[in-house]
């Protein structure tokens, strides 16, 4: 079997053939079985919000049904469907963040949840105006800060605290346009309310409310998720790791961590080093315990511990198909419900752990946040015990892995920039060197390349192609999520990748000793990108929308990505999508996204499927911004 959408991945074909031989079903079999996907759904003009429907309206204004039973036209239906994706995406990131804050509320000096980065705790506490942030006892302060953060989800009045990080002009714009987000839960709830039968039908109003909800993700849920994870588990530091399925070790117990939340994963990493577990592993004939990451849980633990990256979203089934995985341990988001069926063909155990994402089939061991380490040990033990059940004839680990540098949090990136600071001229600890490089034209601009994989396009190809094109043109890339893992596998996250960059970016990489594409973390960590972009804007006294920076999601698929794109555009960043969301059915809504928003947020969505063309558009966009800045 040959699959053109997997051609870019040199190890995929053999594994797909293996699956086929072994009777294991994959996403590709299911995609085939679905035949042509629903055209009305694709265009966003099918409404099943109330029980009078489903109402499918015509995409053609000239013929066919123009309105649903209640009278909602294609603009309303598309806008409501879009809004619901934003609400769902925002809820996912934010609920994730709430779990982290909860863990922080449970933290104590004795553990198992502990404060690993006290400095950052005090810094955020200070930023949020807690008195005595320098002097209070660590855990007293942590609990106070955690409570304050929990209120960000449901406080009755006021807007989100992290909005203050944005440039003043942007904050004023949010106020003026009435899109400054209030409590996160409120924004999600009110948006869902607006989409209820018989509520908002004005597509512009729905868009505005969607942007506000999206902003409550970016500057709220996601930012809290990132910052509080750093406090709990440490600010990511520059370090070396490896990526791709070749990181599975034939002689060790392989545990794949998949999902998004660091709480359980952190504990699993510790449990995998527990002498008791190692002893059982050895008794079962294994060399040791090899924990590897997949998707954003993988990103969380690679950023903080250098845990190797097994792969991204589309490889979750392939990891199992290698026959070398003892357990896939999952928490929330982006987990195929197909995995429990798939593991039936192998000795692999599939363990879901979150009540929010209980996945039917195989094992469910609920994560007990009061005894997290016990849960972790229990799941690790399942894996270790399972080693002896391996079927040697089914093991086929691709011989491919790639050296990777990871860990570029905002703090670490600034630390790298400090390497080029002349202390007689400037102070350390700022983004001024980055802004200088951009203002001088050495770097033309910056792009945040993020998002998932999607079988509508060739896997990883768009991610990697856009990145390669941009770095060639002296545009520095930062990346998170599955895009970051695509970059890792393609070798773009290593220092040597500077050779693929234009002279300007190459010089910058050599002098700061960084790769041309910087891994900033998981998908909630796109808030790190907002943070660094805001710092550059503040450094120069301009709005984010003035900067030559763009957001890019070449292969996105999840609702979270729709929320992310919304908050990027809401923040003044032109955002390029390689997959068109379900909005084709409304010319008006699409025009609002791609042109009209320029008036509101000074930035727009851009849809472009071809990554090479997309890179050209981005380069021109960046040059236009430079021209307006007079640089």
């Amino acid at each position, binding site marked *: 079997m040959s699959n053109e959408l997997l051609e870019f991945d040199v190890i995929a074909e053999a594994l797909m053939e293996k699956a086929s031989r072994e009777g294991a079903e994959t996403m590709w079999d299911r995609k085939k079985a679905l035949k042509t996907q629903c055209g009305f759904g694709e265009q966003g003009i099918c409404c099943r919000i109330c029980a009078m429907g489903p109402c499918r309206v015509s995409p053609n204004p000239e013929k066919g049904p123009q309105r649903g039973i209640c009278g909602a036209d294609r603009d309303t239906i598309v806008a409501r469907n879009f809004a619901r994706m934003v609400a769902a995406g925002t809820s996912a990131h934010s609920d994730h963040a709430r779990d982290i804050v909860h863990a922080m509320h449970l933290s104590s000096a004795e553990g198992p949840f502990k404060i690993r980065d006290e400095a950052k705790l005090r810094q955020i506490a200070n930023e949020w105006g807690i008195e005595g942030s320098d002097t209070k006892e660590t855990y007293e302060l942590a609990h106070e800060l955690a409570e304050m953060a929990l209120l960000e989800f449901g406080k009755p009045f006021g807007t989100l605290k992290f909005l203050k990080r944005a440039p003043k002009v942007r904050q004023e714009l949010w106020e003026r346009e009435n899109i400054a987000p209030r409590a996160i839960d409120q924004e999600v709830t009110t948006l869902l309310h607006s989409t209820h039968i018989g509520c908002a039908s004005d597509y512009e109003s729905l868009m505005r409310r969607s942007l506000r909800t999206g902003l409550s993700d970016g500057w709220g849920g996601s930012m809290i998720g990132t910052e509080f994870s750093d406090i709990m588990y440490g600010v990511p530091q520059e370090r070396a790791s490896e990526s791709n399925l070749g990181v599975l070790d034939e002689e060790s117990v392989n545990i794949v961590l998949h999902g998004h939340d660091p709480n359980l994963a952190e504990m699993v990493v510790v449990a995998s080093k527990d002498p008791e577990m190692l002893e059982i592993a050895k008794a079962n004939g294994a060399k040791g315990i090899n924990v590897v990451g997949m998707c954003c849980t993988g990103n969380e633990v690679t950023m903080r511990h250098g845990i190797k990256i097994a792969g991204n979203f589309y490889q979750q089934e392939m990891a199992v198909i290698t026959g070398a995985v003892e357990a896939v341990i999952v928490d929330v988001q982006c987990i195929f419900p197909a995995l429990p069926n798939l593991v039936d063909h192998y000795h692999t155990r599939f363990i879901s752990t979150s009540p929010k994402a209980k996945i039917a089939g195989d094992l469910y061991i609920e994560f007990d946040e009061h005894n997290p380490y016990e849960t972790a040990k229990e799941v690790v033990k399942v894996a270790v015990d399972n080693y002896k059940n391996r079927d040697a004839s089914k093991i086929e680990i691709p011989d491919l892995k790639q050296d990777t540098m990871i860990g570029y949090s905002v703090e670490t990136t600034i630390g790298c920039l400090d390497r080029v600071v002349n202390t007689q*001229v400037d102070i350390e600890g700022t983004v001024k060197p980055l802004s200088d490089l951009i203002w001088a034209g050495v770097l033309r601009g910056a792009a945040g390349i993020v998002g998932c994989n999607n079988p509508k396009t060739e896997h990883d190809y768009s991610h990697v192609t856009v990145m390669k094109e941009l770095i060639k043109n*002296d545009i520095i890339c930062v990346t998170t999520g599955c895009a970051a893992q695509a970059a890792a596998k393609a070798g773009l996250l290593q220092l040597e990748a500077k050779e693929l960059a234009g002279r300007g970016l190459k010089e910058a990489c050599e002098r700061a000793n960084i790769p041309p594409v910087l891994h900033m973390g998981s998908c909630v960590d796109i808030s790190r990108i907002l943070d660094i972009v805001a710092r550059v804007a503040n450094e120069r006294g301009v709005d984010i929308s003035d900067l030559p920076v763009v957001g890019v999601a070449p292969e996105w698929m999840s609702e979270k990505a729709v929320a992310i794109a919304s908050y990027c555009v809401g923040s003044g960043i032109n955002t390029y999508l390689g997959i068109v969301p379900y909005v084709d059915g409304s010319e008006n809504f699409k025009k609002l996204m791609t042109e009209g928003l320029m008036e509101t947020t000074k930035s727009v969505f851009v849809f472009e499927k071809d990554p090479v063309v997309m890179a050209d558009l981005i*380069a021109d966009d960046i040059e236009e911004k430079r021209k307006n800045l*007079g*640089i």
Partner: protein
Amino acid sequence: MEHKAVNLFDVIFEGVAQYKERAEELVAKTIEEKGREAVGKLPDTAYALPVIYAITGEKLETVGDLERGLEMAAARTNRTRYLQDALDAGVAAAMYTEIIQACKYIDGKPHPEHVQGHLTDAMVRSFGVALVTQDIPGVAVIIGKHKDPEKLAEIIKSYQNKGLQTYLVGDVIDQAVEQNIKMGVELRVIPCGYDIEDVINVVSVAVRASIMFGATPPGEWIKHRIYTRDRVFAFVNVFDDWTPKIIAAGAAAIDMGFPAITETYINEVPTLLLHQPDSDKVVTTSLEARNIKIKVTEIDCPVSVSSAFEGERVRRDNMFAEFGGNRTPAWELVRTVGLSECEDHKITLHGPDIDDESFKAGEVVRLPLGIEVKVAGRAMQSDFESVLERRLHYFMNYIEGAMHVGQRNITWVRLTKEAYEAGFRLKHIGEVIYAKMLDEFGKVVDRVEVNIYTDEEEVKRLEQELARPIYNARDQRLDSLTDESVDVFYTCTLCQSFAPAHVCVVTPERLGLCGAVSWLDSKATKELDPTGPSQPIEKKGLTDERTGAYQSVNEVVAQASQGAVEEVTLYSILEDPMTSCGCFECICGIMPEANGVVIVNREFGGMTPVGMTFGELASMTGGGVQTPGFMGHGRHFIGSKKFMSAEGGVERIVWMPKELKDDVADRLNKTVKELSGIDNFTDMVCDETIATESEAVLEFLTEKGHPALNMDEIM
């Protein structure tokens, strides 16, 4: 403060366009006046227009060729969005400025007497060792006009005190003159010229370092710019407002890895283009930008002590005191004593000081001088004494206002009036020696005591009783040191920071080709820095006694040169000759019709019988490349029995510049006498005062019965 950002690349391209216009005008004018066939290359360089040669691989020799240069520069000017093209345009600017320079030099040196302008190949080669050893730790290029000439003088002096070379371009030259800054290549303050285009003279030095020492192939510009970035620690200071031309030149500098620090704001580029409005911080900003670390030794001395003053001469009209020089006895001695016999930092003057009441005001003070330096240390070996003693020459020359010539009991020291007025007295010589000795030799020397004698009786007595016996014992030891009598040779890879593929093999009878590293030096270096540039080569696996080929030598050389050179011989210049870094004192080349070789020293600027100048001969080798028939070497090697002994030895020498011939005559004559019984061999060796034309040289050799004529065919 708000700074106005500009489109930096627009500024660069504007500057390039201005250079282009001027270059085109000048070339057109020069062609009209001189014709296309006239000589268009720069003087005293083997590389025509060296920068253009490095960039393009083409030597532009005639005025007509300059048109080709204009075309090549234009081809490098492409306006796009990207840094690479902006820097390429900067490189084009360098090409235009070199073309402009060539036009200016068409009738000879276009600058006033005090302005150096273009530097000769020999000058560049003479910097070699100093650059390698970081004795010159960096190169400052100052452009423009300073608001406050006194501050400018402070900056220049600060660089000079740290040993940096400072090149001046523009009004800063006159400002420095007004401030009584002494200038010249030997003082490391070098005026390039008044036009911004004259900055090419520095670029040319950096590029020639890459060609000469790096053996970087001409035409492979990327390699040149990486060489200069990694090995030539230059930077630029721009005072007053910048102009597009300055920024375009800055782009060339940045391409080569040289940061620019501007007084007037322009968009900053971290590490490469910095804005420093505070004149007091320019030096520290610059040193940090180029990551130049200065070893600071605090010395109790009222005048500056820096390698930059090494080349300073004290002339009669400015002389306050003089010691030795055939007028009074003078000697210097370093000797090892036990720890208990040495009181650390004790400096004693025995006899009158230079401010003694007995001297008449206005008359030159003349005194005898004996300098005895007692050193003690557990790792000290008496073999190192002469190594340490030779350094006294440098230490004393580092003193601003002091000149030291000679060694042992032919020492000659002069002090300036300024030094005396600044408070310099004889004990300060002791302070400098004390500080420098510990600074450079701290690994073997734990204690240093200095006795300075000026009492005539005492100086004479100690010379006889103390110094001479030690000199004699050392000479005997040196005579007994032959390549056969030792078990190890040494590598010297000191130059690899500059010439990465070169490695010297130092033997007792063959010192390093720079002339500065003897076998004893290497031995001491190994002791001082066990993993450093001098590593022992166990003498084994002799495969050819005649050429001096050893397996162990080949293995070590292959390893130390990273595989660039796999086989070398010690005594042949035709078969796998030893490589050169480029900073050799002399070069020897075959003159086939005379069946011998000519030797030219770096200082000699004239033509030789082989039709090439020193620079041209030198360009045949260097950079760690083996070129049979050419070999760089030290002056001292000329008197060695091992000098190209595979091809018949010293008797092959048929021609040398007179100065060199006179300098080496004693040793050379002695060697030849021992080997073949011929007396006064150097009388048979031709020099430029006799002939430089091949036929006339042959005539002279025949008339004198030079032995080379009757030897086996050299080739």
